[in-house]
């Protein structure tokens, strides 16, 4: 079943797009997404897809083009990163507000300034209130698998919202990994025929998109959009089950790794979850009850599920690969903290900002977080609810991390 190939995250995503064969792809190249577009353009020129490929002059135009195409009644996709996503900004809200089932791959990258091309999640985190469903993938295989599922999620009649499939720039987008592709006809059958809702090109049933809606109706439309998001969890779960049947691979909206009987744990998105799992295995071998909760679906946010699954922990660290300057912590940290507000059982919580601008996050870094958690769990106080992991020279945060790493080493948690 299927074919095992060596692919980067971008190549895997391009392969998924080839198999989905959308009617329209409009994209502009930007590091680290570039070879999604490059690869897909070669599929177009080789006649492997029937897609109308529009090489636009900017990301604003890319998103505008897929919005127009989707409203016209066809399946439309794009891909971007960082500054490109930022340039799409006003169109992101329009895609969601018009309830257009666009699917976009996002190779996560830091935002300028200073200019940086490497992976962090600041770009898509900033877009988390745009009304897009956001799914964060931990590796190349999952990026491929999720992009295919995203078509079904976005186009489901109960959801009708655009979906971002996010994966870490360079760490996933550019590194090679074994990826098992499904057969083309299986993907084709899985995504099915695109069924448009109120297509603009249906001249027998003319409709208008994008009218002016003032204080008398705007509020109701926005509330209805939120309802699409509220229906999404069930659809995401159903699509995941169906995908598991054809692929043997299943992904939840969140993924637990040895967390059920854990005393300390981390919440993390994307590729750092894999690193965390390695560290947990090492800690478990030493009898330390550690676990990982990988959050895949940031939007919709599984509030009740997280509060239930993590409530038993003594101490929890939420790791954010994005910052929210001036806030209590990173965007995921804020939200996880809020999720516990109504729970009687909740862990002591710390929030770490890590890996900005592609800064490497090593198993030692993660081990240092668990070491801090262990101290807190043993009755220690939360001295620093917000810390920066692997940062140099900070008066408080940096020293805390470096010291914690040294202590972790000394304690023999990682030889």
């Amino acid at each position, binding site marked *: 079943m299927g074919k095992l190939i060596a692919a980067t995250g971008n190549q895997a995503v391009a392969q998924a797009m080839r198999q989905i064969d959308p009617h329209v792809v409009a994209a502009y190249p930007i590091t680290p997404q570039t070879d999604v577009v490059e690869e897909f353009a070669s599929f177009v020129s080789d006649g492997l897809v029937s897609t109308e490929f529009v090489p636009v002059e900017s990301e604003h135009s890319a998103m505008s083009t897929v919005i127009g195409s989707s409203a016209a009644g066809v399946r439309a996709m794009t891909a971007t990163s960082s500054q490109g996503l930022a340039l799409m900004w006003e169109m992101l809200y329009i895609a969601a*507000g018009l309830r257009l089932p666009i699917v976009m791959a996002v190779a996560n990258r830091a935002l300028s300034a200073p200019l940086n091309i490497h992976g962090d999640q600041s770009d898509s985190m900033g877009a988390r209130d745009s009304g897009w469903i956001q799914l964060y993938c931990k590796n190349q295989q999952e990026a491929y698998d999720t992009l295919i599922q995203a078509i079904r999620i976005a186009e489901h*009649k109960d959801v009708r919202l655009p979906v971002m499939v996010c994966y870490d720039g360079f760490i996933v987008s550019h590194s090679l990994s074994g990826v098992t592709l499904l057969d083309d006809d299986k993907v084709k059958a899985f995504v099915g025929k695109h069924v448009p809702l109120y297509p603009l090109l249906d001249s027998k049933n*003319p409709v*208008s*998109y994008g*009218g002016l809606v003032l204080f008398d109706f705007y509020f109701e439309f926005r509330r*209805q959009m*939120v*309802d699409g998001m509220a229906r999404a969890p069930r659809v995401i779960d159903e699509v995941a089950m169906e995908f598991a049947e054809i692929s043997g691979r299943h992904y939840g909206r969140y993924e637990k790794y040895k967390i059920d009987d854990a005393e300390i744990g981390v919440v993390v998105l994307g590729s750092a979850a894999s690193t965390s799992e390695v560290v947990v295995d090492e800690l478990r071998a030493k009898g330390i009850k550690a676990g990982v909760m990988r959050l895949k679906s940031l939007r919709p946010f599984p509030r009740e599920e997280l509060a239930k699954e993590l409530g038993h922990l003594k101490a929890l660290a939420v790791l954010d690969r994005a910052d929210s300057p001036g806030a209590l912590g990173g965007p995921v940290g804020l939200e996880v903290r809020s999720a516990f507000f109504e729970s009687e059982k909740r862990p002591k919580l710390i929030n770490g900002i890590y890996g900005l601008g592609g800064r490497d996050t090593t198993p030692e870094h993660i081990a240092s977080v668990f070491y801090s958690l262990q101290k807190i769990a043993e009755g220690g106080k939360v001295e620093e609810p917000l810390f920066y992991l692997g940062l140099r020279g900070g008066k408080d945060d940096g020293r805390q991390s470096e010291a914690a790493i040294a202590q972790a080493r000394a304690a023999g948690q990682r030889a």
Partner: protein
Amino acid sequence: MKSEQKENPGASAKAVAPKEKPGWADVPIGAVVLEAGCGVEYETGEWRSERPVVNTDKCINCLFCWVFCPDGAVIVENEKFKAIDYYHCKGCGICSNECPAKVITMVEETKFQEANGEASAAVQGNGNIKAKTGGKGE
């Protein structure tokens, strides 16, 4: 939390009658307008603060006003100026500005309101008013 989940709002949504304002679950998905040409129902004339008043006695029927009106609110019949559609005219004043015969005067709406929708004496001296506010399509 957001637990209310009614039947899929988009699939069952129908065109919204102008005066019955539906709840959030009953508005058409994505703010799509499901009827063609319904802009005609929208009384943009309400926005007007100044009303173009045409002195038809001196009008030379060049129809510049009809050409330049951005809202199609100049009514023409038999290739001659007939009236301003005050239901839709927003009072932008472009017609008055473009009129080569200078027979279109912009008059403050308050002057008409003071006279209960009828033209006041002062206005009548300026030109003969053929349409009233609120009259759909004249």
